């Protein structure tokens, strides 16, 4: 077996020993390439990474000793070193012999430092691969020469392309096990070429390798004299970096933080995502559209004459313009778009499925806004690339959908700028990152519907009625007593000459919302419409009383955010499930228990009780009459 350590092209030990200053000078000029390796469980991915680390002397003697003893104990390579053990980290997965998460590894050659994202080939871990690929300049797609292209090869290639990786390496591995058969290699490359073209991958770099033996990793292998292309390391050392390519794009810097040490200094700090900038360059601040010019590029080491994509800097401007976190500083003549409705590709990453209509936090660059997603236009089968009809997206599903943000977002198509086109979605209750997305384009609708300014204002409406508009939002289980108490409240208010309107769950479902059922998505849409109607009524000056189960915290929060501050009063009609079920006024619990009613709140659909309602009514200790008095008193307080 040829030991790659001896003929390694990046042996630097001699230079270190003889002239450390020369070595340091060389090292300090290295650039940085990030790449991912993808392959199926047995494609030899961990072995390849272990080999790269081993060959670049990133393994120390004590680690090597541990590796040798581990190899004998749990390794799969007999008495040989099992490089995979070096790479597989967490204790739990050691025993299973598979990688379960994204791990980052480091090595360097004479020209570059490398960060490798090791991502799993397991079916259920699409999200890990997308995560690892999101920061990569290049993807190494590993194929076992004995097996040729697998479903997983196609999936990994599709994902790498989806996430915008421009450099794809097709590494046909384990060439030693097919006796370095050129015709077999050529057939695999041809297979891949036709597949790649079908999903829009224009160019890729194929190479025959063996991670186990070391063929064509650091130096050309004698076993494959018919192959004249670069070795893997040569290729990794020479491909163009995304950060360098981004310099040719128009200047963009999302503002992270405003630096104000004193009244004389106001700097805007951020990481430049595209282009270059110099003092004197005209810039535009988005979303305001105001223009100014760059005065200084401030760093602790002194002002810079220019700065480029990939640098973290602080800019000062010649004029006093409003600019804060979330804004984008752009070159003046070519700014990014601002819109609030988009089409996007979404990769769902949470166990709980996507809920169309539910508000999520959307974080894009330094902007965080509330966003709702419509039902997907289609889902992509990542194995066949077929478009499938879908009502939602489950864990690891990828689909295309329209989404709407509650205020305009500064963005670019993901294909043009990863920073201004890539976003994550965050669940508002659990705070988990539930999805990643890539914006395609804005929908024209957002640009054409303008807000009509009205001469008779909402204040005028309220003044005429001599009252302060409000929404009393009743929430609670079916049979809790919402409608009964709401009726009493309205009667009392009318007796006091207040102008009111009661929106009742059952009644609304006979008209406005008769097209909606009781799935989670329909319940959300039901509440959204009721929220919008209630809002219009408060604009008309009314006191609105609503009686809906409204089981989800996130949707009640959505309605709260629609209303003017202080006008949303959440009333929790708190009746224990057992009590509500015992009353069972409409006989619904009985039906649900018998299985005749699906998605019934409290039985097979959850009720999320309010954490801090403005008013809480304990119906086990108050009569409906007492409860109504208490609510009226609170409202008019």
């Amino acid at each position: 077996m040829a030991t790659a350590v001896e003929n390694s092209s990046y042996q630097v030990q001699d230079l270190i020993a003889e002239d450390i200053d020369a070595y340091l000078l060389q090292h300090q000029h290295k650039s940085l390439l990030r790449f991912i390796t993808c392959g199926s469980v047995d494609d030899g991915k961990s072995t390849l990474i272990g080999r790269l680390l081993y060959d670049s002397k990133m393994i120390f003697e004590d680690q090597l000793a541990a590796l040798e003893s581990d190899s004998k104990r749990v390794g799969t390579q007999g008495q040989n070193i099992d490089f995979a053990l070096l790479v597989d980290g967490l204790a739990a997965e050691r025993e299973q012999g598979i990688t379960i998460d994204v791990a980052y590894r480091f090595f360097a050659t004479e020209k570059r430092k490398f960060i490798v994202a090791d991502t799993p080939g397991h079916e259920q871990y699409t999200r890990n691969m997308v995560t690892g690929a999101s920061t990569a300049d290049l993807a190494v797609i590993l194929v076992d020469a004995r097996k040729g292209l697998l479903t997983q090869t196609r999936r990994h290639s599709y994902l790498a392309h989806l996430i915008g990786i421009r450099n794809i390496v097709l590494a046909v591995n384990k060439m030693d096990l097919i006796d370095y058969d050129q015709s077999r290699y050529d057939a695999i490359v041809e297979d891949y070429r036709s597949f790649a073209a079908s999903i829009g991958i224009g160019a890729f770099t194929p190479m025959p390798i063996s991670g186990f033996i070391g063929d064509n990793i650091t130096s050309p292998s004698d076993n494959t004299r018919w192959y004249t292309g670069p070795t893997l390391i040569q290729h990794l050392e020479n491909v163009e970096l995304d950060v360098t390519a981004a310099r040719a794009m128009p200047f963009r810097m999302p503002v992270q933080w405003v630096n104000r040490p004193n009244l004389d200094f106001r700097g805007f700090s951020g990481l430049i995502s595209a282009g270059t900038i110099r003092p004197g360059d005209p810039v535009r601040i988005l979303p305001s559209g105001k223009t100014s010019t760059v005065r200084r590029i401030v760093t602790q080491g002194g002002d810079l004459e220019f700065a480029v994509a990939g640098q973290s800097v602080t800019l000062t401007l010649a004029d006093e313009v409003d600019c804060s976190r979330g804004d984008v500083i752009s070159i003046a003549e070519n700014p990014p778009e601002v819109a609030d409705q988009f089409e996007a590709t979404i990769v769902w990453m949470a166990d709980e499925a996507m809920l169309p209509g539910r508000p999520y936090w959307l974080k894009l660059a330094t902007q965080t806004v509330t966003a709702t997603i419509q039902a997907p236009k289609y889902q992509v089968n990542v194995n066949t690339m077929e478009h499938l009809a879908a009502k939602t997206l489950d864990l690891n599903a990828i689909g295309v959908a329209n989404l709407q943000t509650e205020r305009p977002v500064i963005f670019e198509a993901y294909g043009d700028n990863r920073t201004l086109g890539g976003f994550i979605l965050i669940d508002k209750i659990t705070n988990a990152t539930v999805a990643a997305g890539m914006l395609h384009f804005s929908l024209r609708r957002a640009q054409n519907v303008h807000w009509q300014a009205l001469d008779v204002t909402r204040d005028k409406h309220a003044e005429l009625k001599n009252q302060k508009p409000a929404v009393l939002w009743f929430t609670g289980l079916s049979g809790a007593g919402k409608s009964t108490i709401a009726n009493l409240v309205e009667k009392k208010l009318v007796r006091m000459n207040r102008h009111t309107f009661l929106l009742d769950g059952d009644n609304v479902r006979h008209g406005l919302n008769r097209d909606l059922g009781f799935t989670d998505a329909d319940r959300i849409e039901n509440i959204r419409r009721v929220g919008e109607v209630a809002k219009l009524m408060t604009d008309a000056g009314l006191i609105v009383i609503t009686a809906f189960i409204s089981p989800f915290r996130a949707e009640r929060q959505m309605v709260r955010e629609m209303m003017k501050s202080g006008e949303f009063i959440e009333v929790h009609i708190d009746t224990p499930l057992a009590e509500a079920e015992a009353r069972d006024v409409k006989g619904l619990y009985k039906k649900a228990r018998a299985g005749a009613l699906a998605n019934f709140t409290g039985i097979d659909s959850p009720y999320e009780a309010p954490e801090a309602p403005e008013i809480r009514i304990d119906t086990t200790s108050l009569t409906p009459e007492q409860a109504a008095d208490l609510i009226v008193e609170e409202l008019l307080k």
Partner: protein
Amino acid sequence: MSVTGNAELKPESGSLTHLQRLEAESIHILREVVAECERPVMLYSVGKDSAVMLHLARKAFYPSPPPFPLLHVDTTWKFKAMYDLRDKMAAESGMELLVYQNPEAKERGINPFDHGALHTDMWKTEGLKQALDKYGFDAAFGGARRDEEKSRAKERVFSFRSASHRWDPKSQRPELWNLYNARKNKGESIRIFPISNWTELDIWQYIHLEDIPIVPLYFSAPRPTVERDGMIIMVDDDRFPLKPGEAPVTRSIRFRTLGCYPLTGAVESEAATLPAVIQEMLLTTTSERQGRAIDRDAGDASMEKKKQEGYF
């Protein structure tokens, strides 16, 4: 020569160096936390990684001082030279320095000679949790690197902790692009590792190029030592229990990693300058944490276990 200067770069051509990229990434992370968290703090252990992290923080917010305090979770057993540098750097950076010592450990006289693993557990792990709770910090910067240890290679830059400070490696938030999710519920906190992607060599090279002050113990000098369990230990003060008739031996030593002096093994070395230290590091064949007793006590999954329990 500094890393940030654009001496050899042109706007049209030339690549940013790996150190410029790493620096820009770390600064971006530091700023995100300050913009999105209510009460951040920087864990400052006075070692070389802390030195780099502090230096990056000063760059990130220049000309303002970093808008958070430094927290030193002290065991009372650090090297004297570390306490000296700690106080000097806090004064120079204009940052508030908080020193926390676990009162229970102090009262019970927990020390590395009599209490073994309990020493680390009480002073460091428990001390850290107590300090974070006491001040109500919701975000803590730490200087851990992914190249140090296998379980760290898989930890996120933003690492989420439950209200009881536990880390669950099975339910980490996916971290895409450079978008970090800093949202959390009350009582929960986030540990942030701005230098995750730096290697030991990057750290040394950056210290060299940026001329960052570090504890002199990293450089070789004649120092009083004894041998314990195959490790060379420096006798840093008179609390060290010598055996009857034992006298410290002067050896030319330095440290690759710094912690509690009775637990930190020295290496015999003549490397008295940074390039010489880097040269020695590159030519040696044992990994960095080998000098620390802490990783050895529970087999190969030891660090992962400690992290789940709340160790940084």
